[in-house]
């Protein structure tokens, strides 16, 4: 998500706002739902907001956000495999809704890895299981689900190397332009379905 934040920031500096007028990215490197729930301290990975490390749910309430797009996954799977992430996500969403009961929640799929870069826990098989679990969870809870992963993968289900900056999981602006298109398309369908 940090890469997507940089892409959107770049677009804004170029005067291109696209579908993202003024998004607030509550992100930091290596953050996961599990670490977002942990206690804030000097070395914790909680995102900076106005120069202070903050809990995500507090900032969402403070700014009065109407829609929250959540993308955690890679750092969860790398440490916990596929089952635990949904539990952490559910707890985090619970905290968000406790303070902001009217907020709309959208889960975003975790994108795949470049061929040859997979590891013991962090691999495309586990990412697929995670995404499937997350989609089922979103359906059950009435949250939105945005499938970006299957729009930035090749026919064998890998992240194309031409979309990656490190031939691993991190992506370039070509890939993030597709993310933006997918989100815009999702929003268009949502608006159309709401009449």
């Amino acid at each position: 998500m940090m890469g997507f934040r940089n892409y959107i920031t770049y677009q804004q500096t170029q005067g291109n706002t696209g579908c993202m007028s003024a998004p607030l990215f509550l992100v930091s490197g290596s953050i996961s739902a599990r670490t977002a729930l942990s206690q804030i301290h000097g070395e914790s990975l909680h995102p900076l907001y106005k120069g202070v490390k903050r809990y995500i749910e507090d900032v969402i309430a403070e700014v009065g956000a109407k829609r929250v797009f959540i993308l955690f996954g890679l750092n969860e799977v790398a440490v916990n495999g596929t089952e635990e992430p949904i539990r952490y996500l559910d707890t985090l969403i619970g905290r968000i809704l406790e303070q902001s009961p009217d907020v709309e929640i959208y889960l975003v799929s975790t994108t795949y890895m470049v061929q040859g870069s997979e590891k013991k826990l962090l691999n495309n098989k586990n990412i697929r299981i995670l995404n499937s679990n997350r989609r089922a969870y979103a359906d059950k809870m009435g949250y939105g689900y945005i499938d970006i992963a299957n729009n930035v993968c090749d026919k064998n289900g890998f992240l194309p190397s031409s979309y990656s900056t490190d031939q691993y999981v991190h992506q370039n602006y070509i890939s993030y332009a597709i993310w933006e298109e997918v989100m815009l398309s999702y929003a268009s369908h949502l608006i159309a379905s709401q009449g």
Partner: protein
Amino acid sequence: MKKTLAFLLAVLMLISLAACSKPAQTKPVADIYSAIETSVALPEMLPLADEYIRNYYGIDTASLDEYIFRIASDVVRADTVILVRIKGDKTAVRDALELILKQKLAEMQNYLPDQYEIAKKSKVEVSGDLVTLVISPDRDAIYKIING
């Protein structure tokens, strides 16, 4: 002859004294950054907008005299160049930059060890009106340019 020589020396001394008393020229931070870009092979750097600087770093750019905020576009690079000129109290800006560095270290420590090592060698510098944070494998070369 001796009198002429003494007179010329006196004139030269006066010229030297006049040059010394002239106030030092302040180089705009944009020019400093241009010189860095020319001399050092930085990765692709992303300029940060005022809103970004305010939202995430808590710095109101209206309170700064001059500023350059650049981070690496690629999130697997820690490279950061922040040059701020502020005539008033520098405490808040210095503290904000300290926090940016601390956050970068936390993010990189167990994730990108090579970038963590680069970030670990950095610190916030205050020199005159200039408050700077440079995270780069070429930090020393960049500071040579900053310090003129």
